[in-house]
């Protein structure tokens, strides 16, 4: 019966589509250009492709297994099996084994896709088995890790199959599967990683525990998040969740069997006022939750996202830029002043920092400013050319070239370092000047040297 139900699920268009998508992802993962792994060919592709199952493949598997588990009840099979004398535990077991079977199918799809991608990579790299000398390091083909992956995937499939059997409709099962899986996907670490508390809580969830056993991690992949959760604790949490789910499934299975009934014909009966009120109440509750969630999102998320923006989009930089005191604008004024008025008294210019004004005169800074003052033309780096807000490079060109030692200097670079005050509107001030460093120069032949 289980094999027949699994075969029926595998014939569904949605399941086939999901498994094909999974195989395609695995092929891409095993083949993708610029991949850090140097492996190629069918053998290694199978290992690499299966890694997708710990990533986006987990979502695919959870949805497929959850829907399959739910379909036993929602499509009426459970009711008919009950009438035929099947015990409730057997129906729960059917959903669980069906999920496990789909987990195995997911492993096969990922492996086949990975093998195809590996072969494609080998062909593109000129039948090189390892994808080129730059990536010739043999990857660790840890067979035991692969076996652990297969077992974990089958376990996840079984869990979601059982989980799906507790949900009334297939759509709800798919929605729950997405809601449970998405928070623990590695891609979500950008969001979840902001709150280690949340990551800690996730390690206690069923999927977090499975991931903890699977990858020997804290239940969620977070860059820079070192978890001290042991594999043993994850295994215990996982086992506890399985017991809870089995107990819940048995409780559900003891409920009286309900045969599928035809839908109420239109125009007969109708919804009572109490039902209408309950429906309205539910809708009002859902709407208020959505409104509150959106208001909270607006209050919490934008400032946090703003902190992670590139420096040139930070509000402090924009404020300084609007006030004409961003670092590139300050350097622009310093260079302009040096070229029009000379460098006499440069330490007293308002663009120079207080520390530089009050300290001893830096002769190298004076030399660099002199170079800029005498250059034929200068180019102050634009914002998009800057490595950071506190460093501005100025290129000075000389036509004709200036001889220095055995070099005819055509272009030299002067680097300004700046610091911002506590108030962004105060702007940036120069704290040091370095250079000039040759950028473009011609070596003078010894015969031409004096």
């Amino acid at each position, binding site marked *: 019966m289980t094999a027949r139900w699994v075969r029926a699920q595998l014939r569904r*268009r949605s399941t086939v*589509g999901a498994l094909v998508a999974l195989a*395609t992802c695995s092929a*891409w993962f095993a083949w*993708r*250009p*610029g991949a850090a792994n140097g492996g190629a060919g069918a053998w290694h592709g199978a290992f690499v492709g299966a890694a997708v199952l710990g990533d986006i493949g987990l979502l695919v598997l959870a949805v497929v297994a959850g829907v399959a588990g739910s379909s036993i009840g929602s499509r009426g099979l459970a009711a008919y099996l009950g009438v035929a004398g099947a015990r409730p535990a057997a129906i729960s077991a059917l959903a669980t084994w069906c999920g496990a079977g789909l987990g195995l199918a997911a492993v096969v799809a990922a492996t086949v896709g990975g093998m195809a991608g590996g072969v494609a990579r080998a062909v593109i790299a000129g039948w090189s088995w390892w994808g080129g000398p730059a990536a010739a390091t043999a990857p660790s083909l840890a067979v035991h890790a692969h076996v652990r992956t297969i077992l974990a995937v089958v376990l996840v499939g079984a869990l979601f199959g059982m989980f799906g059997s507790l949900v009334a409709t297939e759509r709800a099962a798919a929605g729950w599967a997405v809601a449970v899986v998405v928070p623990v996907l590695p891609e979500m670490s950008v969001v979840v990683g902001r709150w280690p508390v949340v990551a800690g809580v996730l390690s206690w969830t069923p999927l977090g525990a499975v991931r903890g056993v699977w990858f020997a991690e804290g239940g969620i992949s977070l860059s820079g998040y070192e978890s001290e959760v042991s594999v043993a604790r994850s295994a215990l949490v996982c086992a506890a969740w399985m017991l809870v789910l089995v107990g819940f499934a048995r409780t559900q299975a003891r409920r009286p069997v309900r045969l599928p009934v035809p839908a109420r014909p239109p125009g007969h009966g109708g919804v009572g006022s109490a039902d209408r009120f309950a429906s309205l109440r539910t809708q009002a509750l859902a709407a208020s939750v*959505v*409104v509150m969630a*959106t*208001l*909270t*999102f*607006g*209050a919490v*998320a*934008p*400032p946090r*996202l*703003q902190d992670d*923006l590139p420096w040139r*989009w*930070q*509000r402090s*930089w*924009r404020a300084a830029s609007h006030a004409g005191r961003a670092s590139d604008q300050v350097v622009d004024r310093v260079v302009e002043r040096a070229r029009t008025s000379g460098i006499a008294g440069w330490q007293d210019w308002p663009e120079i920092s207080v520390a530089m004004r009050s300290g001893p005169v830096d002769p190298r800074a004076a030399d660099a400013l002199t170079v800029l003052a005498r250059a034929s033309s200068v180019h102050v780096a634009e914002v998009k050319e800057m490595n950071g807000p506190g460093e501005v490079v100025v290129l000075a060109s000389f036509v004709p070239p200036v001889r220095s030692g055995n070099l005819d200097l055509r272009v030299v670079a002067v680097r300004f370092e700046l610091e911002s005050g506590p108030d962004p509107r105060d702007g940036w001030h120069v704290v040091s000047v370095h250079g000039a460093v040759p950028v473009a120069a011609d070596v003078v032949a010894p015969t031409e040297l004096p």
Partner: protein
Amino acid sequence: MRRAPSVSDPMWHLAAGVAWVVGALGGVATVALLGDVGPGLLGAAMGGGVACALVAPVVMVPFVAVACAVDDRTGAAAHWHVAGVRSRRRMGQRAAGAARSLAGLCLLGAAAGLLAGLGLGATGPDGVVAGLRAAPPWPVVGVAAAAVGLSLVIGLLLAAAVGDASLAAALWVGAGLATGAWSTVAVFVPALRLTFFAMPWASIWPFTPSLVDAPYLAQAISPAARAASAVGWSAVLVAVARRRLRRDPYPTPHEPVGGR
């Protein structure tokens, strides 16, 4: 056939959820994504609606395709044909229904943007302002309106050419993935960059070097190349759609359905 059933289709509930999330993000995009000053309430609403419209060619096309192919999916196409409604008119009506739904989704996005902007203004340093502060510029609003029209055209053509809602949606997503894969391969084979404009998503490819730093995805496509790609793919879809609509063995108005 005055009322298109696509608006009440449960599929649009999912689209409404997507529009709400996109609208909420669009309402506070000036702060969250651009680091600029917080929007006024009207500006946030406009930002939410415009964000929904801008993502329509990428996100909403499958929904439009499903709405336009609903008669083929349910088998009602033949019945409309028997009733004397021509395919072109039937699909036009479905597209009109989808357009109304898209407009509703943009309004939903505007409401989400307004609420998110209210939350931001109430707690942020910029305060709550009612006006159009930090609203999208009018040229962007025009581009957003064009994006909605484009998504309608693409969805309608896909539905007419394929005739199967799921396949149309899968084709659209697959075409996007293929275009992205082509872009990444072109990094390693520069000659392929010249052929990128021939990919199905080239005309609406949103990743340009000035917008994103990702070298695998960023492609510099000239407006002329985008236009050529759009015209070429539209012509292909129109040709396939005309052929399919002509070939389908619908009964003629004088022929009983399913009988001899």
